């Protein structure tokens, strides 16, 4: 019983970080109809920045490091949006994929300049490495923390999309961008805001998992695939779908690790293939013509 609970919380924490990253991707797609391959680069930069901030002698606390990293990545997102992405809005998928692939290559190379090619360790404060016991079962504190942050992000996004002017405009941009512009909203500024928010979420996702994962060049390549699988399973543009997708992927990973450890990483792909075989536009997606 105890093992199952611990595996579950581990799976939830994996789902949580995936959700945070993938929901940024899906928000940008929803509001701008742009698919961003450089999203993985934002994740990597979040992780790299945290490794720098935590490692400095001034000893910034982990939370401040995470917040700072996410904000810097968000600014980077604005730069990328201003220089490249805004020109790909309303273009065909190939143009978007290749233009953001170009950005991905540039950021990967620059990342190696700043942080080198080796592995980087992110030490954790001892408070966060411990375990807590809740009603008989023991959980790693850090897993609970990530799960909590993911839930917080999900709720905050829901509140924002439902109950703030910015959120209304974002949803209006999905439904009818022309009418939104006609009613006096600067669509370009709105899109830039959404893109910066998407980058912020990617950076946040990279920053919070940095102590748990390997931080090295190449994590941008693998996370973007995981994020795509999550969004494609859930249906592009749907935040709730992304949450479902993240849970499915993380669950497949956990089951895989128990059933067949050497094939564990293939289970996530299998899950995606099965879902898409049944629903080609994802669980909550709208069929694409």
């Amino acid at each position, binding site marked *: 019983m105890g093992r199952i609970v611990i595996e579950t919380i581990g799976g939830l924490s994996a789902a949580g970080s995936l959700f945070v990253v993938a929901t940024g991707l899906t928000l940008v797609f929803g509001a701008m109809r742009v*698919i961003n391959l450089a999203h993985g680069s934002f994740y990597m930069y979040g992780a790299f920045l945290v490794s720098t901030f935590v490692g400095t002698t001034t000893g910034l606390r982990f939370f401040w490091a995470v917040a700072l990293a996410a904000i810097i990545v968000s600014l980077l997102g604005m730069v990328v949006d201003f220089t490249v992405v805004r020109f790909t809005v309303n273009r065909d998928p*190939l143009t978007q994929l290749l*233009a953001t692939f*170009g*950005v991905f290559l540039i950021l990967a*190379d*620059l990342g190696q300049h700043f942080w080198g090619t080796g592995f980087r360790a992110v030490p954790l404060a001892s408070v966060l490495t411990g375990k807590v016991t809740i009603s008989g079962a023991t959980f790693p504190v850090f897993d609970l923390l990530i799960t909590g942050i993911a839930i917080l992000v999900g709720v905050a996004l829901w509140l924002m999309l439902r109950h703030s002017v910015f959120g209304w405009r974002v949803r209006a941009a999905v439904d009818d961008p022309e009418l939104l512009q006609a009613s006096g909203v600067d669509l370009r500024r709105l899109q830039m805001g959404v893109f910066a928010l998407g980058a912020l979420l990617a950076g946040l996702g990279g920053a919070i998992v940095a102590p748990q994962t390997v931080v090295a060049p190449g994590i941008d390549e693998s996370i973007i*695939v995981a994020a795509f699988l999550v969004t494609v399973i859930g249906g592009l543009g749907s935040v709730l779908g992304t949450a479902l997708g993240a849970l499915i992927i993380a669950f497949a990973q956990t089951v895989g690790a128990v059933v067949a450890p050497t094939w564990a990483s293939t289970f996530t792909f299998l899950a995606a293939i099965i879902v898409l075989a049944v629903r080609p*536009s*994802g669980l909550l997606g709208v069929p694409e013509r």
Partner: protein
Amino acid sequence: MSTFSEKLLKKNRHLNSNGLGMKAEVESSRRPGPSTFAMPVVLAVAAAILGSILPTSYSFILEYAVSLSIYAVATNLLLGFGGLVSFGQGVFYGLGAYTVALNWMHHGLSFWEAFALAPFVGAAASVLMGLVALRTRKLYFALLTLAFSQLAYVIVGVQYNFTSGANGIFGAMVPNWLVSPRNSFFFVLGVTVVSLLVMWKVTSSPFGLVLQASRDNRDRVEALGVNVFRHQLVAMAIAGFFCAVAGTLFVIYSQSTYPDLFLWTSSGIPVFMVVIGGMYKYMGPVIGAVVYEIAHHFLIGYTQDWQIVLGLVLVVIVLLRPDGLAGAFNGLIARRRGRVSLEGSES
């Protein structure tokens, strides 16, 4: 009143002649005229001459560029002709290379048997991938093929005992006479010319025209009673076949394989070549492959930041010249002839 009917007549005649003109154009596009054949022949002869007079260090680069042009043209079969954005062709390139290398490592068939088998392995894998990926459209298709590329990479990396994982496979897996630079160059050139001819026949066949038609208007082609899914699946099989051929040539060129061939960023490379060269011309990707490989080779000597150059070029080309070098070249010629270029998507 009479002027009106005259106008109508004129208009009709105009329409009529337009219709005839279009028909004539379709007819001519099906049969390669002298001008469409001239460039491939010139290129092949030029490559053969260069390959025999250049010092081997240079003919080596050219050999690789030539073999990559199969990869690029096969990818463009899907991208330009089928309208299917595949970020997963590295799977078949890698399978081609690994079929030969694994066969050597596990002492299976002879080199030539493995060489002949590899393309069929690529085609079979391509059909399997197509059965899943082709159920989805456009963006979903691109993302799913990208995911398949990563899946293949992960599997090859994890199954260490069978594939020797991230180390890759090195060794004398190529017959002795093929190791000699000149022999290997002409062998690669020969395979490339044959492959490009076969793919040319495919694109100009009725099958190729249906493929292009379903790229432009899928609903209409389906309404005519064509099974678009099956056509696209066959196109994927052919593209997978030739990507695997290119993969076997990679083994001949480098005498090694490594799992990075499967990575989705590697799958992006032929797409990149197609876009540099121009996807709406049959020979566009060939130009793209040669330009890419030569630029790659010489720039890497000057700077470590090859990826930055690559990324910048990609962004600029995609945003400013989506029809690539071939399109730019045609535009130049058209302007010199003093007529507006109406080049459509016909090859």
